């Protein structure tokens, strides 16, 4: 206590302000280092990342070192660490390590190779899906927070609807009417862009006044869209869309991304709303900076912390969702292995070959857990209010 007081009084008499004793990064490291679970999470995540990348190289190509698709019917359902029966195998069928590290499945495929292949799927699904959702979330939330007070004019809404209608008509094969509507809309946009530069001294006609009236603010519009999206039961929606679309890993990533951006939007909007009123933004505006620079250079770095946290936790839930979809039989088409479909194939042998259930299950658990721990650790470190309390 005494020391602190001394220090305070020293600081008080100093003429020129000093830089802080520790940089922001050092501060961050110090706090993060105290959170042992978060460190564990980060460590597992790095390990998983390395596994997935090396796994991709080891299992792909025309002659992979670990072949996840190699069927050895005479070696089916061998337990983990079993030695292959060399008499009955061709030389190229012998697993690379000389042992089935994680056993084999009902077709005699090496589970270790399949797990390596599946790791990459989990990793990419997690990152791409969350990447999509974070991009949409930042975009929508940023617009709602920063330009929220602007109003959308009635004519903007009308021609947006007309454009959508036109595109829809083209898709449903009413090509001619659709193209006419789209062209009309484009002409109107072109006209209104030109008209903006003309002087508007003349008295405005009623139709124009109605068209130019403010219909709804940007903020309200975006938040209503968020409300609409939140009404859908998310897993069921993802399941429906994935089942209707052709089976492919990219569809899953996109669908998960498109159905999970609402949380990020809300965070970003809230951050932008409060940051917009801060003095440094007013200063930046007074200096005549462009909106683009204010948003991306000044506001975004201050608003990114909760986004990072929710993205980390979002990766965890995206991996879980993908595993659930693969488990139900949607998702990556069969010869390709994912952790979900290894488990799904293994469910018929839970009593004879429990490793087919436990190995992918525990792997998913550990990876998802590491993301959750790391995310919560980040939240604790980045939120000074929470930090004081612990």
């Amino acid at each position, binding site marked *: 206590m005494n020391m602190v007081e001394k220090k305070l009084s020293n600081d008080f008499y100093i003429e020129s302000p000093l830089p802080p004793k520790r940089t922001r990064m050092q501060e961050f490291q110090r706090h993060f280092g105290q959170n042992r679970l978060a460190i564990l999470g980060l460590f597992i995540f790095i390990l998983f990342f390395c596994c997935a990348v090396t796994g991709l190289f080891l299992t792909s190509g025309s002659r992979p070192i670990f072949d996840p698709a190699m069927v050895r019917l005479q070696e089916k359902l061998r337990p983990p660490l079993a030695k292959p029966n060399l008499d009955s195998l061709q030389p190229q069928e012998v697993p690379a390590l000389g042992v089935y590290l994680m056993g084999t499945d009902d077709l005699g495929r090496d589970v270790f190779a399949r797990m390596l292949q599946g790791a990459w799927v989990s990793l990419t699904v997690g990152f791409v899906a969350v990447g999509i959702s974070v991009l949409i979330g930042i975009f929508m939330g940023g617009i709602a927070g920063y330009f929220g007070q602007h109003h959308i004019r009635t004519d903007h809404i009308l021609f947006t609807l007309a454009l959508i209608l036109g595109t829809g008509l083209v898709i449903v094969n009413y090509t001619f009417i659709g193209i006419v509507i789209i062209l009309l809309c484009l002409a109107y946009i072109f006209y209104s862009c030109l008209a903006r530069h003309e002087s508007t001294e003349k008295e405005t006609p009623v139709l124009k006044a109605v068209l130019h009236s403010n219909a709804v603010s940007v903020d309200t519009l975006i938040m209503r869209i968020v409300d609409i999206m939140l009404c*859908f039961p998310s897993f069921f929606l993802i399941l*429906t869309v994935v089942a209707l679309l052709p089976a492919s890993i990219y569809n899953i990533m996109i669908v998960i991304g498109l159905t999970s951006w609402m949380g990020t939007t809300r965070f970003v909007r809230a951050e932008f709303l409060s940051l917009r009123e801060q003095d440094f933004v007013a200063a930046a505006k007074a200096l005549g900076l462009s909106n683009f620079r204010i948003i991306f250079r000044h506001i975004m770095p201050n608003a990114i912390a909760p986004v990072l946290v929710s993205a980390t936790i979002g990766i965890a839930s995206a991996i879980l969702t993908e595993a659930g979809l693969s488990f139900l039989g949607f998702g990556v088409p069969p010869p390709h292995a994912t952790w979900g479909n290894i488990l799904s194939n293994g469910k018929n042998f839970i009593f004879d070959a429990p490793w087919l259930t436990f190995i992918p299950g525990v792997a998913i658990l550990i990876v998802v857990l590491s*993301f959750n721990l790391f995310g919560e650790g980040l939240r604790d470190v980045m939120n000074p209010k929470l930090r004081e309390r612990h």
Partner: protein
Amino acid sequence: MLSFIGRSVVQKTITLFFVSIVSFLIIHLAPGSPSQVDPMNPKFTPEMVERFQKEFHLDKPLYIQYIYFYQDLFTGKTVSWKDNQSVLKKIWERFLNSLPLFVVGTLITWTLSFPVGIRSAIFRGGIYDRSATFISYVLISIPGFFFAYVLIIFVVTYFHVPVIGMETFGIGDAPATYLFMDRIWHLVLPSMLGATGGIAVLSRYVRSQMLEVEGQDYIRTARAKGLPAEQVHYKHALRNALLPFVTMFGLILPGLIGGSVIIESIFSWPGMGRMAYEAVLARDYPIILTVNFVSAVLVLAGTFISDLLYLVVDPRIRL
């Protein structure tokens, strides 16, 4: 108060309208059409397809199909494309099957997570708190289907009871107590699985709410008065920490229908989630759309109820 109710009803009706449009478009613009479900079936001649399409207005433009569909839905005439049964009746039957799962799961969640959360808030930073935190992370992270199989292996190996389905197959005319115990055994695992995620999330939330309240000035005052610790924790702190949870009663409503697709299909439980899953597989659009619509209604009703409850419970809020 009345104006608040009126405004939110109007707002929610508009939201519901857009939800109905979006879900209709998603289903109908997806590639493939329901009449192509079974192209290999030799009985499915082109004439059949044509009759099928006429029967269900599939030859009309989309907006007319939309109007037909919601007209049928509100007059209760929607029929499943698979077996021509009334969709609402089917959903109601399945809902009655899902209800025990939901009720037991919710009860387990709420009765377990409060003691756990309160205790870890009171002994913050202790070994109990840290292990509870870690376990709740594990429960959030564990994939439901994997946990289900772990539990099945465990229960079947150690207790030798069947757990798949709603009751043991062919149990017939057993004594009533036996039937009852059989139902209980079949109910335990799926409802526990439904509760795991809920327990983890809710107990963390209880903990953070309790911590929030325990840091308030009036708690310090209560302590300074020399009140016994129990009274401070349970009378002063807990009562105020309970406030946000009252509103959560509204938010559990959507869980009624969302059910769990995965858990119900693992346990062959003939509930809502499983019906929805089967409908997706069979491209039975009326059922998919109705389930979507009903769950959107429940979400909106849930938020409405929670707003109202907040209004009633918290005198500081005036709308």
